[in-house]
């Protein structure tokens, strides 16, 4: 069964304290792994798509990496405005469906 597990559930960081969020997945025929950011009261906002093991994508203080079993979202020197819930999703080949993890709630303290 296709499954996505994110850890930790919640993370509190001091401003400037770098860390990583984990997304472990089980899916046959991965056709894409997606990272989203969700702010309170808003819909998920697309950040990155990763297609194959070894791939990396960067955007400002965020860097996403992918292996055959998991993806990491690295946050370098975070700022309070990076506080949000980060969601991971996968799509299996031959389907129209995306499978989401339950997210990591990140709080960055000034």
């Amino acid at each position, binding site marked *: 069964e296709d499954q996505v597990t994110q850890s930790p559930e919640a993370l509190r960081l001091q401003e400037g304290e770098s860390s990583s969020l984990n997304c472990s997945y089980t899916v046959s025929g991965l056709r894409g792994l997606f990272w989203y950011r969700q702010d309170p009261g808003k819909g998920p906002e697309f950040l990155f798509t990763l297609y194959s093991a070894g791939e990396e994508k960067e955007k400002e203080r965020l860097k996403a990496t992918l292996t055959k079993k998991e993806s990491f979202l690295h946050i370098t020197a975070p700022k309070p405005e990076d506080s949000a819930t980060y969601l991971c999703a996968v*799509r299996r080949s031959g389907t129209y469906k*995306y499978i989401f993890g339950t997210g990591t709630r990140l709080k960055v303290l000034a």
Partner: protein
Amino acid sequence: NAGVTQTPKFRVLKTGQSMTLLCAQDMNHEYMYWYRQDPGMGLRLIHYSVGEGTTAKGEVPDGYNVSRLKKQNFLLGLESAAPSQTSVYFCASSYPQGENQPQHFGDGTRLSIL
């Protein structure tokens, strides 16, 4: 360019009442989806559509119906609302080309069933 727009943003219903949630997208996307988001359970797929006039069941379809009469609109209906349907509902859309296209989401409808 509004992206994905959901109406209404908030609604309170009594058990047994019916209502329709509207999703509109202006990106000419073929695929559209309805999800519900509950604490600790993540986003769960209710129904989806791969084109105008088509619909299919997702992970949690019971108690909901959908229609896609126009390419840009995807409607979610609750015929007889139940307290278990209290949730935040999100609509999303995506391009069909390639299987690695991300979804674009609306800002949700917060629905409470009393």
